[in-house]
């Protein structure tokens, strides 16, 4: 029973990290319809940035959160302006955006190898080895801090998306980019901003991860895959959805340790994903990551919960679809929109 409580707490704390990671990916996909394969690269970059600042300048990683976030926001905007913007929009851009961002990831990885060598690094602060006892469990201070930061970020994101003009603009663009230009929202700028925000979230997640795990330039690959699992499980709809899905993944992973050897836990996420897809093709929350047979027909607006946004322009909830597994291929012609230029 004590073991159970330990694992439960460990899962909850881990879920914080996973939800931050997943949110960056989900945001970019929701608004730009692009899967940011460079997500892994930025996670790794954030980890190295925090580590380097700690090594060279002695800055505590939690203090360097804001500067790292700001710089990676800038990097994201730059990547968008230079590269992503030139991709054709709509379905044709699908494969190309993947490959393009993957190329960027390769370059980032190479830069890391050149600058920092391929050895494993760890971020050890003076308080890294301390642990607090919460009830019967002994939890390291790092994990609690990471969780705290993750929760703060999620709350901030929620507030940003619901209370500010920028947040509402982002949600609007996610719903229907063409209508936004009619209303006067600078769509291209929102795209750049969202890409920057997603990148910043990835870097912050990497920084947090660096304080928990050792890392090397290949760090970020399995984190990317886990973020993806979280997004498909239910993270596109809202901050709360991401958090719940992250919690589910973390719980499954942590409790799977009881049954299977530790290093197979990364595989657990995928098995979970495929199981969910087979049993409930709509994901856990009926998300719009999935295809349905009706998605070429535009729908009138649905009532949305406040704080959530619909990344689907004209995708009905997959729950209402009675399809078999029809799916899109990469080069589907865009059904309801003109190219976004």
């Amino acid at each position, binding site marked *: 029973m004590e073991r159970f409580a330990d694992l439960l707490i460990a899962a909850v704390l881990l879920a914080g990290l996973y939800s931050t990671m997943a949110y960056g990916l989900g945001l970019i*996909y929701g608004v730009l319809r*692009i*899967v940011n*394969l460079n997500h892994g690269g930025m996670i790794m970059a954030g980890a190295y940035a925090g580590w380097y600042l700690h090594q060279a300048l002695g800055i505590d990683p939690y203090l360097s959160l804001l500067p790292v976030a700001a710089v990676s926001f800038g990097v994201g905007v730059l990547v968008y302006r230079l*590269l992503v913007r*030139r*991709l*054709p929009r709509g*379905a*044709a*851009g*699908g*494969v*190309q*955006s*993947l*490959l*393009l961002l*993957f*190329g*960027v*990831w*390769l*370059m*980032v*990885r*190479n*830069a890391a*190898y*050149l600058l920092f060598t391929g050895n494993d690094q760890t971020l050890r602060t003076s308080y890294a080895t301390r642990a607090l006892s919460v009830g019967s469990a002994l939890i390291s201070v790092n994990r609690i801090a990471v969780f705290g930061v993750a929760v703060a970020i999620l709350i901030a994101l929620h507030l940003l998306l619901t209370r500010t003009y920028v947040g509402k603009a982002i949600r609007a663009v996610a719903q229907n980019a063409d209508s936004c230009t009619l209303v006067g929202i600078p769509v291209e700028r929102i795209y750049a901003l969202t890409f920057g925000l997603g990148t910043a979230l990835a870097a912050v997640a990497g920084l947090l991860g660096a304080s928990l795990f050792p890392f090397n330039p290949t760090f970020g690959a*399995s984190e*990317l*895959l886990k973020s*993806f*699992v979280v997004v*498909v499980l239910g993270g596109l709809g809202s901050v709360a959805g991401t958090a719940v899905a992250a919690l589910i993944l973390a719980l499954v992973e942590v409790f799977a340790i009881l049954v299977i*050897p530790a*290093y*197979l836990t*990364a*595989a657990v996420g*995928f098995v979970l*994903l*495929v199981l969910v*897809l087979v049993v409930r093709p709509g994901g856990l929350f009926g998300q719009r*990551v*999935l*295809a349905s*047979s009706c998605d*070429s027909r535009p729908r009138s607006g649905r009532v949305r919960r406040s704080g959530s946004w619909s990344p689907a322009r004209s995708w009905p909830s997959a729950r209402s679809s009675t399809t*078999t*597994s*029809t*799916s*899109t*291929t*990469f*080069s*589907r*012609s865009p059904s309801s929109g003109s190219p976004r230029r």
Partner: protein
Amino acid sequence: MFGIGGFVAARIQLSLGMPMLISWAIGAVVAGIFALIWGHPTLRLRGPYFSIATIGVGEATRLVCTYWDSFTGGSSGLSLPMQTDLKYTLYWYGLVLAALALCASYALRRSPVGLSLLAIKSDVDAASDVGVSSTRLQDLVLFLSGSTMGLCGGFYASYFSYIEPGDMFGFDRSISWVLMGVIGGIGTIAGPALGAVIFVLLRQYLIASYPQLYLGLYGLLLVMVILFEPLGLTGLFLRVVHRARPDLTVGGPVVEGPSPAGGAPPPAKTGELK
């Protein structure tokens, strides 16, 4: 699929002692079935998410197979017995295989099945309205590509006489095939072959001359190709042909992106140039 095919073939040769070709064939079939089992549910995901799901399946398979060391030999891998003259005979086998693959894909392109596949590529819903069963055809494609990779895996195992899960299932290897396709031209027939030749030559050169810049140069190449000529070398070739002979209608890949014919509707299939 590569890994599955390779390991199944190697295992069969080691444990059951069957001849090479049969073990390749069995490896191919097993790999195809494996692709079908994993691919079918993930077809429900939209395009880019489908790709990431397949990446995930690859990683999960790698982990599981590394752990399953009675089958794959764990991190130490499997070694096949070396034979003299093997590489020489295998070279010819490989050439034959490549030619067969090219002919098969050309034949597929021309067949009714090929037309249905092209229809699905353009618009799944419209295709299904016309009566093209997208699920069955996608399963067929999964099985075909899986078994081809499995065959290649078996071939690779015989050729190098040593395979191990980290490499066979590794992400870097998987992505190298995508790169070959991209460089040569996705969706064309000659494209991947061309891309493969160039990729291998480039890789040997890079490893020899600039080993520390290898990844970055790949990334840069990928970015450049995507930004400037998404169809790779075949796209360049088609562009040149269109400029030189605008009257010639060229059968090419069905593209949604920037059309090489400068805004003209997708080229009709009146003539197959490639």
